[in-house]
């Protein structure tokens, strides 16, 4: 890169435009990464936080709780599997109307069994006895988010049509599912609230803690269930696939755009430099030497511009994050996004590969083959 670096230093003005464009693309990509991750977190942080490895749904439910219904046979069958911990879970989206005159709230109601690994200890509960491990939750343990909206311990909410009202026992880190804050309650209360007193002992799905290497297919066949990993279950959350799909598409486009822009720029640069490339070859430089020099130069610009744009984008996300928009940006996500972008830019410069190798040394003398 003897020539490339000196040229960069002495004619840097030529590269301002391309560097700005690459930096802006990097900024946009970083902001989108922050928004996409924020959206994902806002959608499934509650499910992600549950201490389970897999979920068993009824066949054909496609990891969607509202389409799935399982009974005691499936639970019994899974209980027979060695080294497996299993507990039923009920999940429904409900509107909880205030029985104490406040506003109503939309929640994802999670019914969990007492003494199971899904059971949540509430913090801030006045009656320790009632909210402690091993006893059914006679009320609601709400996601912390709702506390910020003014809901207090002791408030009462009515769920479904004919049930009585349920008190708020306390709060816990609940997170969200399908963009709704989670409300934990006892599995029996969940069933009664949704299906009435005569309801059969059914539930939405089975939460599983499976040892690694466990043969899911065989167990599914025995139990008549369809088991997916926790990550695959995210897709069942309302809107999740559409949201992540859209974001992935936009980011893929940005990568493609960045590759095209850099490719176009390098192609123009190569055309402008045809005589100089001919001269280098006449001096005995190989095509590989000329390519190393040119692509190295592009790489320096792309890496610096991407770093600057990514830094600026992280700043934007930090500012946006103070407001109500859900954003999330981890260091690894930032680095991954920047590396992808820089990589696609450098790959873009390969568009000019043939153009460089085809330049004939004879043009240095003004005669071509």
């Amino acid at each position, binding site marked *: 890169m*003897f*020539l490339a670096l*000196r040229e960069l230093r002495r004619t840097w003005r030529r590269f301002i435009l391309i560097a700005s464009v690459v930096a802006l693309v990097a900024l946009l990509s970083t902001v989108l990464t922050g928004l996409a991750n924020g959206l994902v977190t806002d959608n499934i942080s509650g499910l992600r936080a549950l201490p389970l490895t897999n979920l068993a749904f009824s066949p054909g439910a496609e990891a969607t709780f509202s389409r799935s219904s399982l009974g005691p046979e499936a639970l019994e069958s899974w209980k027979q599997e060695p080294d497996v911990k299993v507990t039923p879970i009920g999940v429904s989206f409900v509107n909880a109307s205030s029985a104490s005159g406040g506003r109503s709230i939309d929640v994802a109601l999670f019914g969990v069994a007492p003494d199971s690994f899904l059971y949540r200890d509430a913090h801030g509960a006045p009656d320790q006895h009632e909210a402690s491990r091993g006893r059914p939750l006679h009320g609601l343990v709400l996601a912390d988010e709702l506390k910020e909206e003014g809901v207090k311990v002791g408030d009462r909410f009515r769920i479904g049509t004919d049930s009585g009202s349920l008190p708020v026992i306390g709060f816990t880190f609940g997170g969200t599912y399908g963009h709704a804050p989670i409300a934990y309650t006892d599995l029996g209360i969940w069933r009664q609230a949704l299906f009435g007193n005569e309801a059969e002992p059914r539930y939405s799905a089975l939460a599983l803690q499976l040892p690694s290497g466990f043969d899911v297919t065989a167990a599914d066949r025995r139990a008549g269930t369809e088991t997916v990993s926790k990550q695959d279950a995210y897709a069942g959350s309302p809107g999740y696939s559409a949201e992540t799909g859209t974001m992935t598409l936009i980011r893929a486009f940005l990568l493609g755009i960045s590759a095209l822009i850099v490719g176009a720029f390098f192609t123009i640069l190569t055309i402008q430099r045809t005589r100089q490339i001919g001269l280098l070859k006449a*001096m005995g*430089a190989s095509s590989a030497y000329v390519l190393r020099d040119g692509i190295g130069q592009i790489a320096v610009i792309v890496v610096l511009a991407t770093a600057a744009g990514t830094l600026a984008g992280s700043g934007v996300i930090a500012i946006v994050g103070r407001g109500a928009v859900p954003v999330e940006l981890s260091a690894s996500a930032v680095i991954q996004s920047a590396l992808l972008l820089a990589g696609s830019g450098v790959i873009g410069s390969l568009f000019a590969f043939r153009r460089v190798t085809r330049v004939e040394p004879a043009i*240095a*003398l003004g*005669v*071509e083959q």
Partner: protein
Amino acid sequence: MTENEGNTPALALRDLSVSVPDGQQTRILLDHVNLEVAAGELLAITGSSGSGKSTLLALAGLLRRPDSGEVTICGERTSDLGERQRTDLRRRQVSIVYQSANLVPSLTAVEQLELVGHINREKRKTARTRAESLLEELGIGDRWNQLPGRMSGGERQRVGIARALMSEPSVLLADEPVASLDPELSVQIAELLASETRSRNLATVIVTHDEVPLNYAHRHLHLEAGKLTDVGLADVR
């Protein structure tokens, strides 16, 4: 080279022919041209514009291939060589001096020479030292840190010659090296090429339509209608 250095010409062109498209027809630019240049010899080739002088240099410098015939450099036949080997041979044995120097605009004088060292995978330090002393030798040592845009035409051509000498070639090809210089500078540059040819034992070919270089050449050939004819010996300096 080898023990037969005395009788192997540094540069030999045998039966070279090149045709170029000319409208609907093809025009024979070089017609079975033969030429030998020995180490230490300075050859001048004249010819009207468009007679194929630059094309002849491009063939001799392995920048392009003839339709037929053979180019031999330091005893090595080149027609059977692949592109990579030709590039390699060119890098080691051939240098070109261009009309109006053809320097890289973004490199200083000393860097023009260092670039040659870099292409030849020479150590940074030794390349730098050699580059500085070459510029000194050619009388432009004080211009080492100047970009081409701020040099005079004569200075540029001196840097161009220094750059050509940097790779320590056996064959030096100069395409109209004094065409863009005034008479006084032309004499200086022609003198310089002649003295370097002598001191470095180069096989030098100067293509020119100027009279000046003829005064320094050992032989003078004329290119016309695809044929090279010997105009006779100039007086040897």
